[in-house]
């Protein structure tokens, strides 16, 4: 059984910790590893260097001045996740395999943004529900690969 790798991007480390703990405690029918990234730069670095099956993205994340200078799209904290999503899509544009993408956010998104990801999970959500969603997202992937 291949190890499923999840990247959870959220600048709130307590959030990523508690989510990782739940995945670890409940989703034990597969072998999951949860990586976390607390900033835009951190996330980009990890996406480019490692393979993930699922990436969970927060939308509102704080951005440093340095990051703003490097990337003109990063205006304020309000839409960091969307900029990140664009960068990830761009990175996987010509790749054969792509990770699943899901927003895990408390912010309401534009409808147009929804179609760029596989799922939008709105916070707050009871852990049973988001665990089920995560598992479903990864199961479909599994089914897909077996058929292939």
């Amino acid at each position: 059984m291949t190890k499923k790798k999840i990247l959870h991007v959220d600048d709130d480390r307590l959030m990523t910790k508690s989510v990782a703990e739940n995945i670890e405690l409940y989703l034990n029918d597969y072998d999951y590893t949860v990586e976390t990234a607390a900033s835009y730069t951190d996330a980009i670095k990890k996406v480019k260097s490692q393979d993930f099956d699922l990436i969970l993205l927060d939308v509102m994340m704080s951005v440093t001045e340095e990051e703003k200078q490097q990337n003109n799209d990063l205006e304020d904290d309000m839409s960091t996740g969307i900029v990140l999503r664009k960068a990830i899509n761009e990175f996987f544009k010509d790749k054969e395999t792509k990770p699943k993408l899901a927003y895990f956010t408390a912010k309401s998104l534009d409808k147009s943004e929804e179609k760029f990801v596989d799922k939008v999970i709105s916070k707050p959500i009871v852990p049973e529900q988001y665990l089920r969603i995560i598992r479903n997202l990864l199961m479909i992937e599994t089914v897909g690969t077996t058929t292939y």
Partner: protein
Amino acid sequence: MKILSNKILRFSRYEELQEIEVAYNNDKKTLQDYEKLARLHLNIAKTIGSIDAWDNIDTPIEEITRQIFDVLNFEYVCIGRCLTKDLKDYKYITSKSVKIPEHLVSSPIEDSFIGQIILTYGNREIFVWSEQDGDITDIKNTKNKIPNIQPNHIERFKSYFSFTKVKQFMVIPLKHIAKEEVIGYIVMCNRNGQNGLERMEEESLKALSVYISRCIGRHLFYRYEHNDTQKIRKIHNLNYELGIKETLKYLYDEFSLMLAAFWIPVTDDNQPCFAMEDHYHEFKGRKEEAIEKEVGFRDGKICLKSDALKRRKKVNWFENLTKDKLGFSIDIGTNQAIVVLIHDDNESTKDDDLLGAFVLYPQKSLKKSHVVEERIKILADDIKHYLQATLFDRHYKQIELLREQLLGVDFNNSDNFYREIVGLVNNTLQSKYCSLFFANEKEELYLKATNAKKFTSFDKGTLENKKNFIAINYINKKDEIIYKKNSRSATYRAFINENTVNIYNIYSKNAKTETIFCEVSSYEHEPVIATPIKYQGKIRGVIRCINKENLNGRTIQAFDDLDIKMFEFLAQIVSKFIENIEKDKDQRNFVNHLAHENRTPVQIIWNDMHSIKRRIEQLAPTGNHRALNKTFKRLRLQTEIINNNYDNLEAVLTDKDLIAYRFNKTDLKEHIYDIVELLEPKLQEDEERPIRVETQIKNMPEVYVDGRKIYQVFYNVISNAARYSTYDSTIKIKYNDSVEVIIDNKLVKCLEITVSNYGIEISADEFDLIFKQYYRSPIARAKNATGKGIGLYVAQTIMMKHGGIIQVTQSTEPTTFSIFLPNKLKSKSPDTN
């Protein structure tokens, strides 16, 4: 007797008698003359006395002329007036033998023979010329010739006498009593049988001239006042611009001017100056062109108007002006000007109250006249009333227009709001473009809204466009800074100095401004006005207008002081509106932010509770966790209440379409079960007498709704039922298929979910009220102090967005609320996706 007879004998009786007869005849003649003159005086006095001020003066003057003609036996007598260039005859009487040449009283004054005499020598009481001496002399003072008689006049007199049959020529000026000013004249020629006037006759005529002067003077005064009033009354019916035009034309004609102009005060970059509102003249061709170019603007410090302001008089007569003092660089054929200041208030001569100034350029030959001044003074008062009235009217109309337009602005759409605001200010101020700039945190200005499409950067040195900007690329972009700190532009100065900046022409090299971001227009001359937008005690931005639209044939292309007042007033109103919008926006942002911030801790609490539960299960797999589970449920409910409170608050403050609804396939049953489970701790508050929930919802189909929002609806309604239920009662939640309800006056087929409970009855008049924001029924308030009257309002708002409705379908126990969702939500429809 003897002595007497001796005496008689001593003298020749014939001689004696002859002497006596001569003396008698002389006396008789003198008496006759006296009688004649006395009768003349009496008749003239009668005639004058009979004149009514409003009558035509021609007939009585003719009568007087005839009396002088008859009694004093002249061949020609004329009485005329000479107030303006037209030396107008009231009447002349002439015998057939004297032919009066036309040019005797022709106009203009410098071309008329008599005009020249009166204007040149009119300060004398009476003057008489005769060709008898072969020279032109005052025959009463033969030795005392008229001083400084001009050589060309002598020639003209000579040719005049030889050309006509006129041998004697007498002029008596008619003078304004108080001011010693010539207002008319009596001309007499060729006395029959006599050479000139007797002393007595002369004295008598002098006295007569006083009567006649008075008569003509008073008559003229009334006549003028009457005419002027009539004219201004007509002007009152016109608008401001047309009225000024008409007034100028009237003044031009009445005072035989070279040019009449109206100037208005303009504060250009804190320096007072004047701009020409309108002018009237009859120059043709090149000269006219030159004036059109020349007039327009004068430096406030050196112009006549500022001289007039210093004098603080209503009517200021300037004589012997040099060319540049006239306000024109070209020769307009005069060297004098009359500046009439029109102040807003009668008593005051403060600069602030100046409505404008009429500048009249009379002909060179017009002597400074008190009568004319007096007349202009009275006329100016009439005009002032007209100006006050029309300006008030104009302001009132503008404010009224603004008020009407403001009512039509949609304040909920903030992007549109700013665009509408600039359009509205633009209309009201009658400018070409209006732009609104906002300041960022660093006190730099960016473009918030504009009605212009293109901007340009202009080099005043080379008079060339340096760079073009497309407006849309700058609108509402905080990082596209247009005016950096320390910018010398008018707009930035208005912002940083917190006052209005008005510039007559930004392209002028003298204008103290940079032209780095100007609306592109076809005008050469560009006035600009900028004023700060201030709210909550802080300057937030600048509103700027450029170019005055040429409406109603308006000559002035600048923003005048009234515009400044108007603009500042507008800015205040606009600021107030912006303040409200921004405050509202800030509040929404704050609540949104707070709601968002709140969700994270709730999520973490839920995560951690979940982890704890799992770990305990792992540590003690066989233990009894019932009590623990209850604690967890209570915790979850309480965090859910916090969460829901924020969701409600957000829904109330952002119910204006700010957040789009997302319609997804949703299983409502699950929501209901979740909520019932969630509410368990509340339902079992009293463990002995729990509140039960019965559900009959198995047949409920899945629907396309915004799941999260509909969850909120169910949560609000069911938790309401739980809150107001009496212990040991049952809440029933039922599903009904296909029910018809009237929503928005239309019959709609709906799914119905009813929630009924025992607790409080609702009175009929409260059916609608309970869905109003912050309404709580008196009974509800008595029963539970924690509700805030928001839940049902929010639920109703959300239902409306789904095309559904919540209603009270039973007010007696069990009280029943029905949630109606339109049938069409059962399938995915294009307009709900």
